[in-house]
């Protein structure tokens, strides 16, 4: 049975921003506190999923390397905006973690099932 997520966390910012880092930190903290959590990557946030990111030369820590931590923290529901994926030339099959595709219009239903929504 698919249980409705209690906490929905939405990220709209690219993977190299402070907002994305805060979103990721909050998501992992929610996992620590056993919150039933779903993460949604919208718009530029899908850049988090680019494979083989090397950000050493430009300083910001790449969150991409931390993606496998989501599962370890019990975050198994990661939704991705399919139109943003297409805009970035990313394909579902090539992503570094398992995600659920989110079609246009499905976000509203997801928000409606969540107890709380945090937007970054």
């Amino acid at each position, binding site marked *: 049975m698919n249980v409705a997520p209690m906490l929905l966390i939405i990220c709209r910012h690219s993977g190299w921003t402070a907002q994305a880092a805060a979103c990721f*930190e909050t998501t992992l903290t929610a996992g620590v506190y056993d919150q039933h959590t779903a993460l949604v990557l919208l718009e530029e946030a899908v850049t988090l999923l680019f494979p083989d990111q090397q950000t050493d030369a430009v300083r910001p820590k790449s969150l991409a390397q931390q993606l496998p931590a989501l599962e370890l923290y019990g975050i198994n529901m990661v939704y991705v905006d399919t139109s943003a994926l297409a805009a970035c030339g990313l394909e579902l099959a090539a992503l570094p973690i398992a995600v659920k595709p989110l079609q246009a219009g499905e976000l509203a239903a997801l928000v409606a099932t969540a107890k709380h929504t945090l937007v970054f």
Partner: protein
Amino acid sequence: MSSFALVIQGAPYSSQSALTAYRYCEAVLKAGHNIHRLFFYQDGVHNASGFCVPPQDEFHLPRAWQRLIQQHQIDAVVCVASALKRGIVDQAETQRHLLTGSNMLPGFSIGGLGLLMDALANADRVVTFAP
């Protein structure tokens, strides 16, 4: 009566989000509801700065927050990691990190993300104000 938690992510004067959050908070209280917690996160921690000096004919948002918080005895938490990164410190953090002075307004307190999780667990509604 419902209990609300507000997550404020915008700095005063940089975007509309902090002022909107303040006005929303006022409206919630005026309607007879309860504010379970204010959580100032990311650039939102600047709302707790005692070093803001806006022009005299402009709204002093940090002091307005302070008045509202003290008047209604609201739990106002400033995220510790966000605050330290941005130079917002209370006296305890000033001593801990051997800094020259503190700048956090009285009424605000420093805390971790666990308090945000607590707010998510206990408030009826959580509203995010992001720039």
